[in-house]
């Protein structure tokens, strides 16, 4: 997966993606929305709906999931 420079942190574990391995996190991401902002690692407010999800960072705004 290609990541932009702003995607520094892992949305699953919140750690720096340059440190350690995140293969397990990436697999987990198939079945859960991100919990941490990729730009600043803050915990996001996440709402899951029957066919989608939104995750909101207080600094970097909202990301919306593909409808499942």
């Amino acid at each position: 997966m290609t990541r932009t420079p702003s995607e520094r942190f892992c949305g699953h574990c919140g750690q720096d993606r340059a440190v350690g391995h995140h293969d397990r996190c990436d697999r987990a991401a198939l079945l859960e929305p991100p919990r941490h902002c990729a730009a600043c690692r803050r915990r996001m407010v996440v709402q899951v709906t029957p066919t989608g999800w939104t995750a909101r960072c207080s600094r970097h705004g909202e990301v919306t999931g593909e409808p499942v």
Partner: protein
Amino acid sequence: MSHIIEVARQQVLEEGRGLTEEQLLEVLRLPDESLEELLALAHQVRVTWCGEEVEVEGIISLKTGGCPEDCHFCSQSGQFTSPVRSVWLNIPELVEAAKETARTGATEFCIVAAVRGPDERLMTQVRAGIKAIHAEVDINIACSLGMLTQEQVDELKGMGVHRYNHNLEAARSYFKDVVTTHSYEERWATCDMVKKSGMELCCGGLVGMGETLEQRAELAAQLAELDPHEVPLNFLNPRPGTPFGDLEVMDGRDALRTIATFRLAMPRTILRYAGGRELTLGDLGARDGLMGGINAVIVGNYLTTLGRKPEEDLDLLNELKMPVRELQKTL
């Protein structure tokens, strides 16, 4: 053929009497070589006593996170260092979620809140939400709001709540290893009040939480004693930060054996695939479970995690020639 399968064929399939706890334990101990035969029997039981139809439901979290309880499997407890943050859904969002659910062909929409029991703020939100959904969406409404008082049971019934979910979660003998902030008996009391009110009771639990096979059989037998209208069967999805976060995902064959066991305990109940099935069973297992005793599914996403695409489940039901139950038949 295994002796217990022969017994179950006569007792459950022919006579409609669920297996006893001791018999259920025998089923759970069946070797992998008997699994195919066991699933085939469980499927025959479900078709004979429940029919071909499958009930489809969507769920939504009205109030996420910040729960004061310590259910060790749950990422929404405020007592653990889970990354799940607290959030409330507003009424327009709730109505939109009901519409999303109805568009999938589901007949049930369950409103869930992560609470010990509903306070006045939550009851006010539920009251307004149900009124708004009833005005705009043709769907049955279920609720899952924790432990209730008799007054709350009566009020929810008066609002037109079709079914109330409150799981036992675990067998009585294992409950204290799963939850310490309330008791098994408190859970049973709410289930009992719901049943007596005339609302349909939805009551199930989780497996794969480190319980023994004896305790898994015990849970099935205790659910059978309670005799709920619906039993949602969840497989532990170990959540980061929870006390059960490091447990291994349940073996798929054990999960399928558990499905068949629950069906042989409760031949007439709606047995629903609930959380964790994607992780535990994958795509192939979804099919095996539907051919092994399951007759209801949660489509789409769960409360804090994601599920399969609704069309994947609906296509599978179509391929298996299992009709989706229509709304008027659930009323």
